[in-house]
């Protein structure tokens, strides 16, 4: 029992941090620009493929730097020449624009790298088990992933809360005209924010690529869960996204370990017999079976009972 609790906690934290790594860029863009960027997972995928291509030629570590910069530049171009033109037509247009972008990026990736998975490897320097816990090995690469996530969280939080840049960025969202009057170039601020957000997604891609499977449908597989994190965490809150990532990682991991169904809980009582007829479809479905769907249940509950999210500080 202790073993399961321990290992599930560790697995949950590791997975949660991976999620945060992916969601951090999304939440930065969302909280500062108010744009729910559907294409975020696509930037993440671009990061993974760029990282793969660069690491094949010059190694993993240069890739970890170059790929996010490249994707960041692409993000800035998207903001400057796409999103900014669309912005004046309102949020729906923005949503649809980024939604369309996901398909374009997916097609481009398929054209360049094909539909098969690419052989993106963990760098040799990190390809060893870091420690062993109850006979389960934990690869050094996962610990590295954890460290990067925490570092990114800390740096982002510092920038937003403690620097002038963060101040200008936050002000530009709520009072763009006033910030413009004060001599700041609001357009450029948004462009930079979007670039940074895309770059963060790419960092996640470069790191998650070898850990998961790098292939042309990886964006579609991860996109939805990122929105859950941003909404559950709360609009405009980086800490919220951090907490939500951990929460979802832990919920999913612990749920997998629970092999209990309605039938087990209610046993063989008279009432159970009646209920089993009514709920025959879900009667013997275990919690483990629905584990990956639980985050979406959480999303629905949060939207109903606490629309601003766990730590959100704005209503919409």
């Amino acid at each position: 029992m202790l073993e399961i609790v321990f290992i599930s906690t560790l697995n949950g934290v590791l997975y949660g941090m991976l999620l945060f790594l992916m969601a951090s860029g999304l939440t930065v863009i969302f909280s500062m620009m108010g744009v729910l960027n559907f294409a975020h997972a696509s930037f993440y995928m671009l990061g993974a493929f760029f990282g793969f291509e660069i690491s094949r030629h010059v190694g993993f570590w240069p890739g970890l730097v170059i790929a996010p910069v490249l994707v960041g530049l692409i993000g800035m171009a998207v903001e400057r020449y796409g999103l900014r033109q669309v912005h004046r037509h309102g949020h729906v247009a923005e949503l649809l624009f980024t939604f369309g972008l996901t398909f374009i990026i997916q097609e481009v990736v398929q054209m360049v790298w094909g539909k098969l998975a690419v052989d993106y490897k963990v760098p040799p320097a990190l390809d060893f088990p870091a420690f062993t816990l109850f006979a389960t090995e934990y690869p050094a690469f996962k610990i590295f992933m954890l460290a990067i996530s925490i570092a990114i969280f800390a740096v982002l939080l510092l920038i937003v809360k403690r620097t002038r840049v963060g101040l200008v960025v936050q002000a530009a969202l709520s009072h763009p005209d006033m910030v413009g009057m004060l001599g700041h170039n609001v357009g450029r601020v948004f462009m930079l924010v979007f670039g940074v957000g895309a770059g963060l997604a790419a960092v996640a891609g470069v790191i998650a690529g070898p850990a998961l499977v790098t292939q042309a449908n990886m964006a579609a597989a991860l996109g939805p869960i990122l929105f859950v994190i941003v909404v559950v965490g709360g609009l405009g809150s980086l800490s919220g996204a951090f907490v939500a990532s951990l929460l979802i990682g832990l919920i999913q991991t612990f749920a997998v370990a629970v092999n209990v169904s309605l039938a087990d809980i209610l046993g063989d009582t008279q009432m159970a017999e009646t209920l089993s007829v009514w709920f025959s479809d879900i009667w013997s479905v275990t919690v483990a079976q629905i584990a990956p769907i639980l985050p979406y249940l959480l999303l629905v509950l949060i939207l109903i009972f606490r629309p601003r999210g766990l730590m959100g500080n704005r209503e919409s």
Partner: protein
Amino acid sequence: MRKFVGSGALALVVLASTALSAMAQDTLKIGYVDPLSGGGAAAGQIGMNQLNYIAEAVNAKGGVLGKQVEIIPYDNKLDPQVSLVQIQKAVDQGVRIVIQGNGSSVAAAVSDFVTKFNSRNPGKEVVHINHAAIDPSLTNDKCSYWHFAFDANVNIKVEAMTNFMKANEAIKKVYLINQDYSFGHSVAEAAAAKLSGEGSSIEVVGKEFVPLQKVTDFSPYIAKIRASGADSVFTANWGNDLQLLIKAAGDAGLDINWYTFYAGLAGTPTAIKQAGLEDKVFQITEGVNNLDYMPMQEEVKAYMAKYPDAPIYYPRLFNAMGMVFDAIEEAGSDDPVKFVPKLEGMKYMNFIDGKEGFMRADDHQYFQTMYISGLGALGPNQPFEEENTGWGWKVAATIPVDDTIVSTTCEMERP
């Protein structure tokens, strides 16, 4: 204005001439309805490459009944509903041979649609060539005269794989992990019954179902498998669900054997290599490219010169196409009404090993020699690696065709 009239006339001439040449060039149209975008795109694309290769080869030899074979792709996005729309489109374009395979739920819908379509449209009959869907109901209670299954169904594969496992005395505890839909459940049930049946010393220590293609982090499942004390895992997972599972096992250093249906599918050999599970992952198929049969090896080399990224994964497509072409030649007609009877009971030399298989007339299930193979570093006389990993499939067991025959409950309605 004159310029406009001139170009209009030119356009008309061009249009007329292409229409004429299309009429003159009577082709044998074969519709390939499989996923060419989305999650199943990789598998669909490999099938498409192989069909194109087969068509080119037969066209170079003069075609079938003197007609050139034309493969027309229809992207069904792995969706039953979209498939039906695409098949209708194919039929409207003159297709009467439909090849489909990926996804048992899709195959069930397609088979059903084709059967109904044929009863309502006499003279326009369509035949459904199923190259991959292996839910046993397709050749049992839901069997159809117009459906032919070229891959061995779940019952055949489970029977062969569990016999192989029972023969290995090192296997004591087996964990079953499968995808949470009809196919995964039928595999888990059949495997549990066979493994822990009479006279078996094997214990099934876990029976897990995972939502189809929704899990990103498989480490909790690996923790459960380890906690169960299993020495082997039996899984029919495919695609991401198998790749991520195996990578998570490699990460956690879980050192057990894996018995699978689909470890050869696109991307999975790469994941196995990355997980470092040498000679620990087994699959059951109708054969691998490293079999010692020279005519096939020559063909695979020629194929790989054209499509260098992945070796042949669907030898059964070669069987299926070869048999359909033979049936058409024999019947002297490409009308399904005429050539389908020729397919029933047909014997065929398998593409992959040159051994004889046969299409059982009772349920339209093809029976062929089956092979269990493991992935590892290439040995002598093993020329083909998988996905540039340096590892390739080597045969661990051969199941002769007579040992693969299972009973059927099919009561076929014949026209």
